């Protein structure tokens, strides 16, 4: 399934990276919940020049797109409001 939540890149090591769910993540029931800063190892093979601080969309363990930071933060802000309190 497609999860459209931008993840923040916190470490890069060649084609491996670590991303952190920033703001929101999907709960076990598939609903948006506020993130608990979970770190996840992902592959960066499908993108060029990923840097720490970039935001990416992850699908099945591979980052499939980098998002401009400003737009990613905007998306996250919207998703955070959807997650509610």
């Amino acid at each position, binding site marked *: *399934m*497609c999860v*459209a939540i931008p993840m923040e890149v916190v470490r890069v090591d060649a084609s491996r990276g670590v991303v952190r769910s920033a703001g929101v993540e999907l709960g076990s029931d*598939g609903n948006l919940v506020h993130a608990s800063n979970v770190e996840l190892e992902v*592959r960066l*093979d*499908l*993108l*060029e020049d990923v840097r720490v601080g970039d935001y990416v*969309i992850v*699908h*099945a*363990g*591979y980052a*499939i*797109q980098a*998002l*401009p930071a400003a*737009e*990613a933060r905007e*998306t996250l802000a*919207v*998703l955070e*409001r*959807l997650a509610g309190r």
Partner: protein
Amino acid sequence: MSSALLAEARALCSRLGAWRDRPLTFMEVCGTHTMAVAKSGLRTLLPETLRLVSGPGCPVCVTPVGYVDHALALAALSDVVVVTFGDMMRVPGSAGSSLLRARAAGADVRVVYSPREALTLAHAQKQKQIVFLSVGFETTTPGVAATLLEARREGVGNLSALTANKTIPEALSTLAASAELRLDGLLCPGHVSVVLGPEVYQPIAARFGIPCAIAGFEAVEILRGLAALVDQVAGGVARVDNCYPAAVRPGGNPKARQLLDEVFEPCDADWRGLGVIPRSGLRLREAFAHLDAARRFEVELPEPVEPRGCRCGEVLRGAVAPDECPLFAGACTPEQPIGACMVSSEGSCAAAFAHASEDLA
């Protein structure tokens, strides 16, 4: 929901509600859209003139029963570990068995989140043959390609893939040409478009005169896509509107497309419900034939038998709604699925079942 979003959602709904000219049928093609539509109760917000049908965008659902039989035959081999995405586990094969039942009977079947985990497992269990069940659309297949490229680079001898990968644009062309459906618009999948780029739908809009809109996954984003489709119909035009521009760029993701193309080549593919569509599948190129599980292992396969009474095929091409199937919610439930559409959480039947009570509430 924030007030700005709620205001936008209201404005979009009233824009959609203003459509009175003639009944329109739009199809949402992505399994995640199907889930989001069911979960948000979005259908109840649409005017009666606007019908939203679900398409073949759940990879597990469109995988023919013969593939499940093949996976089960491989799982029965003593030195094989079958590695799969979770939603394949309960899809019934011809004889009513499933990977879940095979595992309960002693087969080694592992559920993973990423194809890359199959490679890790191949390194960890060198005495075993690791077979990855490669099912998915253009969003998933580049990751499989990257995994197989890595395996080839490392000379890994005990990993292979049983492929049933499919491509969305060819299936959409088939649906667009369907006299049975007579679609007025296509809500195109977000993340397939991230990889392929919005241009791939251009021929569908041009050739069939069917408006296309690419949408993100939140309810409000789906509403934006639907509103773009209505606007195109009202304006008498058919083009591709990109309503998910933050992630979907012209040309898509070039590196993902390049890896996909390096490892896979087009082939004819059998879609449950749609039949064989020319060049709508992906198979491993000759240079990767040694990683093809279908060539590595010789197994005997039964003649594929679709489950009796199941209308998954018609559900998948949007010809009937899930609750028009006689098995829906009776003999076929997410706990005891008969058809694939009830198995995967992205399947139209599973989504309709899970949220039926909310729609009535």
